């Protein structure tokens, strides 16, 4: 006490104390992000995934400007293969497939990212909240997420969608989020349970920190990579599920998405007519986005599980080894508890 309040201690700090501190605080959060980002982009696979995803996001943003044709406009050019006029050919009613694809990208990505965002927020609240609170409340929340995990999603979505009077984007997002949050919540909970007993969390409690502050400041930064991985996973789930719904005709068939394209293609037996250009692109896009996301997940996995990193290191030989000797020498130092937590 005396040493602090006495003020006599020589403090070699200049006058820029305030700004320096703000700078440091900003740098603190940035540093971690930079480390995370560097780890992600270090791996070739993850980098490829990020690039693919970026391209699709750009298409979603600027798609309609790239190809100005209206996706629904019919023309006389029926069922034509790819040409300069119609890059990806036309449908049975002479609609431009490329225009549909570009337009559909926006809706598809909007719905799946939206659903994943909502699902991740639910997962964070239920997973971390339940994990940290413990007790009866925690048990109930855990039970709830386990239930949603076990109940097969698609039949539930189908049943839900079957009853839904309004099949627009918002209700689709909500239905997908409702069925897609449980997986993330379960893993976040496991992780939080292990973090809760870590010494640095106990130390923060002894330092007199309040619960909400411990949750946000001590625990949340550690579960972010896992939440990110859950987010990515949920996006894949949402894309595939919404396409499946649309394919079954349960979506709004007048909105263009990759799923509705497949629905119309199938309804008009595009494959039977040999119009592969109608049917193949939307599926390929789903696959590509899914793959891109999965590749990004590889990078997150490596970040979360240090042991996976070492393998990456082996592959790329000695030059890379020099960069990461720290992790190799202290393999248990940082986040290895994550592995155990996710394991069970």
């Amino acid at each position, binding site marked *: 006490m005396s040493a602090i309040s006495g003020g006599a201690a020589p403090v070699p700090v200049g006058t820029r104390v305030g700004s320096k501190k703000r700078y440091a605080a900003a740098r603190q959060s940035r540093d971690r992000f930079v480390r995370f980002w560097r780890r992600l982009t270090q791996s070739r696979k993850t980098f490829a995934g990020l690039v693919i995803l970026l391209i699709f996001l750009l298409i979603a943003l600027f798609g309609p400007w790239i190809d100005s044709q209206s996706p629904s406009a019919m023309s006389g050019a029926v069922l034509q293969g790819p040409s300069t006029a119609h890059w990806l050919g036309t449908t049975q009613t002479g609609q431009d497939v490329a225009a549909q694809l570009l337009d559909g990208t926006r809706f598809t990505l909007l719905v799946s990212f939206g659903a994943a965002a909502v699902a991740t927020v639910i997962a964070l609240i239920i997973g971390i909240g339940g994990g940290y609170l413990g007790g009866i409340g925690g048990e109930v929340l855990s039970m709830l997420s386990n239930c949603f995990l076990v109940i097969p999603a698609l039949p539930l979505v189908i049943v839900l969608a079957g009853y839904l009077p309004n099949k627009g984007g918002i209700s689709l997002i909500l239905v997908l989020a409702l069925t897609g949050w449980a997986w993330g919540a379960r893993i976040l909970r496991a992780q939080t349970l292990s973090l809760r007993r870590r010494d640095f969390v106990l130390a923060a409690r002894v330092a007199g920190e309040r619960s909400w502050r411990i949750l946000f400041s001590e625990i949340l930064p550690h579960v972010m990579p896992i939440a990110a991985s859950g987010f990515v996973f949920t996006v894949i789930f949402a894309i595939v599920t919404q396409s499946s719904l649309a394919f079954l005709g349960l979506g709004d068939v007048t909105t263009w998405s990759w799923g509705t394209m497949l629905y119309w293609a199938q309804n008009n037996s595009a494959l039977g007519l040999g119009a592969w250009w109608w049917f193949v692109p939307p599926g390929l896009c789903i696959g590509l986005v899914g793959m891109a996301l999965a590749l990004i997940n590889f990078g997150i996995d490596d970040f979360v599980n240090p042991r996976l990193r*070492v393998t990456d*290191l*082996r592959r790329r030989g*000695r030059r890379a*080894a*020099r*960069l*990461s*000797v*720290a992790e*190799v*020498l*202290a393999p248990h*130092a940082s986040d290895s508890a994550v592995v155990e937590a996710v394991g069970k």
Partner: protein
Amino acid sequence: MTNREPVAANSALPRGATIEVDPLRRNQRPASDRFEPLVEIQHLTVEYGVGAVAVSGFDLTIGRGEIVGIVGESGSGKSTLAYAVMRLLREPAHIREGRILYYQGDSATELLAVERDQLRALRWSELAIVFQSAMNALNPVMTLHAQIDDVLRAHDRTLTRTSRRERGEELFKLVGIPLDRLRAYPHELSGGMRQRALIAIALALKPNLLIMDEPTTALDVVTQRQILDELLRLRAELGFSMMFVTHDLALIMDIADRIVVMYAGRAVEAGGPEDLLRDPRHPYTIGLLNSFPTVSGPKRRLTGIPGFPPNIAELPQGCAFHPRCDRALDVCRQQVPTFTVEEGSNRGVRCWLHGASTTLGAEASVAEEQCEPAKLARNQGSDMDRGRSSGP
């Protein structure tokens, strides 16, 4: 997993050169005539990635039935050494040079050069290892008996099921575990019992050399003492040698015949426990002896060692200990001293204060040292410290 390239390159060197830098082998034996070498480590250098040298030019001969203690702090390379002898190093750790000879009768086997099949045969039947944490070293989904059993089966296909079973019981009796625990899984045992089980597994094939990597560090003092007593008794009974790696100088002084003190990857002092206790020579050894409190006798003045252990990736030039040494000379900051051995004894020290001279061999080794790029990132923590203190 071990990179054999450098070894091949090394064995192409004139053999005499290797022997030249091997003072331990020549001189560092117990005075008795019965000394019979079992394992001989010659100029072993282990690197992590490029440039981080964990073990540097290490020489040691272990005699039959001898207990050699290797003492050092974290980052001193002691565990790396133990793993290297078993050839268990994993990437990016690799052996850059050196030889490890294993003597069987009149012939010697170069452990670093043997093929995989031969290595597999040598492992456990000749050399066995006991890890620090038995909880992690035992397979959680197999019973203890199954884990003994598969060693027996892998090395001797002629053994019958009953004979393997009997051997398992015999081993458990040997290390003092109740026989009904044979059917138990590792998580069902206490820490001390697990460590005993690990020792039982190690003894399964009556190896000649037992490598102990901090086998009792995780245990309570009382349990530790009991296990050490058991080990000494077993050594007397079975006659194996031990290479006992630990950070606890007091403990190793109780049980070892000979002790090698390691600092930053190098042997800095060697000798019998009595010698080290009565007449420590290297300032690091002296510092260690002044670091631990004693339970008996008058209270001593404890001085400890200032500073922090170095980071193997950024070793200071010259003697690695000089930044912490209060008696450091100018030469200490520039050149690594040679390991000087006292004629006719097993005492040796690597210190400029104790007769190290700039011989031809020493110069060669210094030159080689300087080639090592010392710019590796960091080891588990002391980097910042190091970076700043060695900076301008």
